[in-house]
């Protein structure tokens, strides 16, 4: 007990890291489930269905399968770098999430904010510096496998990530100019207003330029940065077998997979913070009924699950889905308790916005075909970069315009 009161920062941070790691790992697993389900439904299929009710245990089964597969290391590979690459990819993508504030800093435990692991003053800059070295995981994996396909994948990925990182960073600078700060909390607080019209993406007013162009540039560049369709050239199956991770198997392959999904979550969080008001609610604070929204939503989900359990589920699946129903109803009831409802308010809106962006990601994957390599490069350099630069210049002009007018 004495140790805890003497080192509150250390102890609270360790607890937060452990909890966040558990949540993120679970979220990664179920993101794969969500992706398969959504794509399946878009393509008029069922998706995972048999492992657990509605395929809910599929991620667990996949994880176990990855663990028990044989781990093959090609004899001609560079052993050290070959082993280092997946660790680098996963560790860096998880580190980035530690900087994200999932809720307001006013919720505290032992004097430390609960919803962010590391509250850094120049959070955005640190986040960019961590994601900028994320390319090594892919590039080194491609090189160390000593295979032509892997090398091509690694080369493509480094070229693509360098190119799109420029647009990604420049599209964000407009938001920085409006907020006048690199701290995530200040950027979010700057978007507080009576309605969602005060979010950076829509905010029109004196000295404000709506960042809708910046948001679109950011989203496009972010999809390219995370190597997702339509920018998944580094692992184009039709040309490169599986690209940079062709030679990887077992859990090392799973680590690349997890890193990709963790990166998706990170860029969604960043889009939420910079353009969509972070943990702010889209409604004015005076509408107090919004406190009950998370609980009500969970209970509605629970009621639907109960209907499904009784109506369509049979056998073991019925039992499994009954558990899901109970969890949803219990969670909903918990969220309706006044103190809990107040605490989770910010996290609820943050999660809702992230899920919307992730759904958009998956939707893109189910809809769009892949770019050709020269199209990818000319799109990045000749369209995305000039547009994001123009957005930056316009934003800066709108901000300094009152000063220019006053001084003649």
């Amino acid at each position, binding site marked *: 007990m004495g140790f805890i009161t003497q080192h509150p920062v250390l102890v609270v941070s360790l607890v937060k890291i452990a909890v966040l790691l558990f949540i993120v790992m679970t979220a990664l697993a179920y993101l794969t489930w969500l992706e398969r389900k959504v794509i399946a439904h878009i393509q008029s299929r069922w998706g995972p269905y048999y492992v657990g009710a509605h395929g809910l245990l599929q991620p667990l089964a996949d994880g176990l399968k990855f663990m028990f597969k044989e781990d093959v290391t090609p004899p001609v590979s560079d052993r050290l770098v070959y082993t280092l690459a997946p660790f680098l990819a996963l560790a860096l993508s998880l580190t980035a999430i530690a900087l994200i504030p999932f809720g307001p800093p006013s919720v505290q435990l032992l004097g430390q904010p609960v919803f962010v692991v590391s509250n850094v*003053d120049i959070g955005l800059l640190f986040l960019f510096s961590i994601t900028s070295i994320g390319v090594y995981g892919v590039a080194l994996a491609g090189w160390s496998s000593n295979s032509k396909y892997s090398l091509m994948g690694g080369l493509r990925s480094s070229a693509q990530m360098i190119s799109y990182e420029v647009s990604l960073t420049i599209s964000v600078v407009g938001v920085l100019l409006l907020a006048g700060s690199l701290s995530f909390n200040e950027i979010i607080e700057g978007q507080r207003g009576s309605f969602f019209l005060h979010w950076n993406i829509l905010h029109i007013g004196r000295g404000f330029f709506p960042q809708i162009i910046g948001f679109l540039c950011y989203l496009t560049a972010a999809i390219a940065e995370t190597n997702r369709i339509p920018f998944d050239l580094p692992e184009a199956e039709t040309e490169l077998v599986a690209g940079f991770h062709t030679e990887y198997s077992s859990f090392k392959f799973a680590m690349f997979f997890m890193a990709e999904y963790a990166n998706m979550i990170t860029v969604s969080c960043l889009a939420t913070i910079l353009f969509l008001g972070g943990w702010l609610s889209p409604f004015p604070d005076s509408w107090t009924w919004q406190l009950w929204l998370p609980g009500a939503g969970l209970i509605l989900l629970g009621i639907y699950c109960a209907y499904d359990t009784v109506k369509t589920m049979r056998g073991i699946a019925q039992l499994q889905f009954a558990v899901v129903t109970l969890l949803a109803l219990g969670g909903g009831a918990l969220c309706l308790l006044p103190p809990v409802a107040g605490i989770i308010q910010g996290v609820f809106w943050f999660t809702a916005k992230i899920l919307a962006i992730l759904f958009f990601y998956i939707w893109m994957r189910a809809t769009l075909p892949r770019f050709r390599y020269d199209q990818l490069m000319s799109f990045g350099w000749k369209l995305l970069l000039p547009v994001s630069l123009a957005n930056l210049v316009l934003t800066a002009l709108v901000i300094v315009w009152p000063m220019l007018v006053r001084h003649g």
Partner: protein
Amino acid sequence: MSIPLILFIVCALLAIGGAVALILAREPIHSALALILVMMSLAVLYLLLGSPFIAAVQILVYAGAIMVLFVFVIMLLNEGVEERTNFSRLAKYVGLPLGFFLLLEFGHWLAHSPAGAVIANGAGASGQAADTAKLSEQLFRQYLFPFEATSILILIAILGALVLARKEE
């Protein structure tokens, strides 16, 4: 031992180890990785000196941009391991002692200069962390001319690279 001191010792050893590995490694990619290790350790040292902005920029620019290009070029050319020539005798008998002497001299100077005292006391620990606003104020007011001159220099370098890389028509 305080946590900053432990961090300093670990990162200083990592930086030195990385620098030695950079010279001794025969595979170009291993050398590049060692250089990245040096830069990351230096970034942590900047952080300990109370300058998070410089630390972030160090990682962003050097490890995240310049070294990515290095690795990219090494991968693109995919050259084999480097060939060793014998040590030149001059380097062995004159260079090494001179280098060692320079290190001693530099350490001696640092130990007795005001700059060394500031570093030893830890600028970060005394709460004088330089924030981004102050830094940019200095950069865009007091040091505006050197800043602009540097950007023109970089522009010229880019143009030079373009001219060199252009194919003959």
